[in-house]
């Protein structure tokens, strides 16, 4: 196909740029402004920014707008890499709150209010608290109380809602950041809201200056904002506002049904609201279909690969002990039934003795030096198996979910090395290191 032809598809014709009647994303005064106002209204925010550089840009803007070099920010360690990347860029210092963990599932949970309060009291000079709402696995912290705590101590409350678009529209879903009174939220409309990949919203509440946030956005945002992405945001906003409630109800019904059926197969554990504990698993996002597979002797990533290769079913991700399927209104009964039946077949054909399998997904890190300092220190590359007890100078992640196993400045422990080797053996997609094969790792010199 030749994109310059007159019969080019509509999406190519939408790809125009910044002529006066079409407004300018860097300085919106007309149509983009109007669309952003409609989005703010739909999401219950004071202001909404259209973001075309991915939710990464929205997360980074939240951090840049709250912290300068040397400022502290309180966040759970199981943040997305974009948050720690922001710290590398701006020099803010993370105060990590260790997320709760569920030993059986081996996954990190949310933050308990008590742990956040402790971090706030120990670090009264911190500028902001960042909350995952929800985590990739659909687990929410008590965001209302965390926002209140932050505000009571003069800190901003930020939310990474990369997986939370639907919280603004569905019934019986966990509280959204804006409803909880948070100051900023980064929302990946493209993940569960139906806009094009890389388009996103940054929502703001009353306490932050719209003008200042825009200046921060413009530090790194393209000056040629894609109208294709902006149009998709506007259309997704319309669809969500008009049909969101119904669409997410259907998704929740499908996911609830699938959980029930998968748990009947035996061996698997499709977890849900029964794990809510009022603390670090405060609320569960029922559209997420997370299934624990380790009790069947299979790593999540193995089930993920079998589903794709043998059953033509592509799900979101598989990690060491779990798989995650995201159910949307675009699914049909057939897809749900096929997914359940395939899991039943995988159990019949592949299940084995689970002893000897790696049983934890999350290891609390030891942070020796701040991310920016570590990233820009003198570093050397060493074979990964010889890196024990050194300080890591780069990221190591499984992708997805993209939560760092190691971030710059963290100590490389034996547990972490064993975990990395196990992930490699099971076929996880490891990313982040300069060496694409992950045979070598950059460590801080003299560490």
């Amino acid at each position, binding site marked *: 196909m030749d994109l310059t032809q007159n019969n080019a598809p509509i999406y190519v014709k939408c790809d125009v740029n910044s002529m006066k009647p079409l407004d300018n994303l860097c300085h919106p005064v007309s149509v983009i402004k109007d669309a952003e106002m409609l989005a703010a209204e739909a999401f219950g925010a004071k202001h909404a920014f259209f973001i075309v550089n991915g939710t990464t840009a929205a997360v980074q803007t939240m951090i840049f707008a709250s912290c300068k070099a040397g400022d502290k920010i309180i966040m759970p360690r199981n943040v997305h890499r974009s948050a720690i990347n922001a710290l590398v860029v701006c020099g803010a210092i993370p105060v990590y709150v260790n997320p709760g963990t569920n030993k059986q599932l081996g996954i990190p949970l949310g933050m308990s209010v008590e742990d956040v309060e402790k971090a706030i009291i120990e670090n009264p000079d911190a500028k902001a608290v960042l909350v995952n709402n929800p985590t990739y696995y659909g687990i929410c912290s008590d965001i209302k109380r965390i926002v209140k705590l932050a505000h009571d101590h003069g800190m901003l409350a930020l939310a990474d809602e990369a997986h939370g678009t639907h919280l603004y529209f569905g019934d019986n879903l966990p509280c959204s950041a804006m409803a909880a009174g948070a100051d900023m939220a980064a929302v990946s409309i493209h993940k569960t809201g139906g806009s094009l990949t890389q388009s996103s919203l940054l929502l703001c509440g009353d306490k932050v200056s719209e003008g200042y946030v825009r200046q921060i956005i413009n530090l790194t945002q393209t000056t040629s904002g894609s109208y294709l992405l902006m149009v998709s945001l506007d259309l997704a906003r319309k669809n969500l506002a008009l049909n969101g409630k119904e669409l997410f109800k259907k998704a929740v019904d499908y996911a609830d049904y699938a959980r029930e059926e998968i748990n009947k197969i035996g061996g698997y554990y499709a977890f849900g609201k029964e794990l809510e504990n009022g603390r670090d698993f405060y609320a569960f996002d029922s559209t997420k279909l997370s299934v624990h597979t380790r009790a069947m002797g299979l790593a999540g990533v193995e089930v993920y690969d079998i589903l794709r290769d*043998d*059953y033509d079913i592509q799900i979101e991700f598989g990690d060491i002990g779990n798989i995650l399927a995201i159910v949307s209104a675009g699914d049909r009964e*057939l897809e749900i039934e096929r997914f*359940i*039946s395939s899991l039943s*077949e995988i159990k019949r054909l592949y299940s084995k003795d689970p002893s000897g399998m790696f049983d934890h997904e999350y290891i609390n890190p030891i942070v020796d030096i701040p991310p920016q300092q570590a990233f820009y220190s003198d570093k050397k590359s060493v074979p990964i198996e010889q890196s024990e007890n050194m300080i890591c100078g780069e990221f190591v992640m499984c992708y997805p979910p993209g939560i760092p196993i190691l971030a710059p400045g963290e100590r490389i422990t034996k547990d972490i090395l064993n975990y990395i080797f196990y992930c490699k053996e099971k076929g996880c997609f490891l990313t982040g290191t300069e060496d694409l094969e992950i045979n070598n790792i950059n460590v801080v010199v003299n560490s």
Partner: protein
Amino acid sequence: MDLWFTEKHTDDVNFTIRVKKQLYSEKSYYQQIDIFDTYEFGKVLVLDGFIMLTEKDEFIYHEMVTAVPMAVNPDIKNVLVIGAGDGGTIRELCRYETIEKIDMVEIDEQVVKVCKEFLPQTACSFDDPRLDLYIEDGLKFVRRKENEYDLIIVDSTDPFGPGEGLFTKEFYGNCSKALTDRGILINQHESTYYDSYVDMVKRTHRRIGSAFPVSMVYQTHIPTYPSGHWLFGFASKNLHPVYDLKAEEWKKFGIKTRYYNTELHKGCFALPNYVLDVLDDCN
């Protein structure tokens, strides 16, 4: 008035029959259901525009999906039929007095209702006491069964629309689990004559082969299906459709058939080379 019904067999081939009267036309939750009365073929059941059966040639299909497995294992007692809302397969099974239990799973209740009203020729055995009718998804139903059936007949529509899940690898695996050691799976296997069907035949054959040690294909002449040359699958864990044929025992059933006989049984597993080429390509 000259009224004709046309089914598209391929992009470039149509099959057209003259209609006396349209008897029924409604859309169910799953599909468009039509019944025509025709001059040549009697009443015709059409789903989503595709002919499922005609009164004139349905006996061929229904005898061939029932008599073939019954002649390989005359001891079949428990049968699961998936699809088959028109009742023809049930009618044939009910002729075997030794069958003790038939579970039938049809996803679209509307098809059963309509056939009972307009197609008594096939929908005549729904009251048989051995039959339990379940209105639900076959893929879901069979998933919960283990070592329960001696025979599963997949009397499905085409591999798109409501029947799509009945052509998947997980479905055939679930069937294998639901069958006893001497169990047999019979399925509607499409046709290889037109190129547009070939990929699906290959995929289906490959998927069944992954779930069953014995996976064979047999052929039939069904005049109102695309090309008229139609295939069925015979899969089992250890019974061979020809070497294990119990011709004398089947004859003792005393069932009068218009298409099937035990000599034809042996012959229908002998396939033309162009079909063999397609099937060989699956391995």
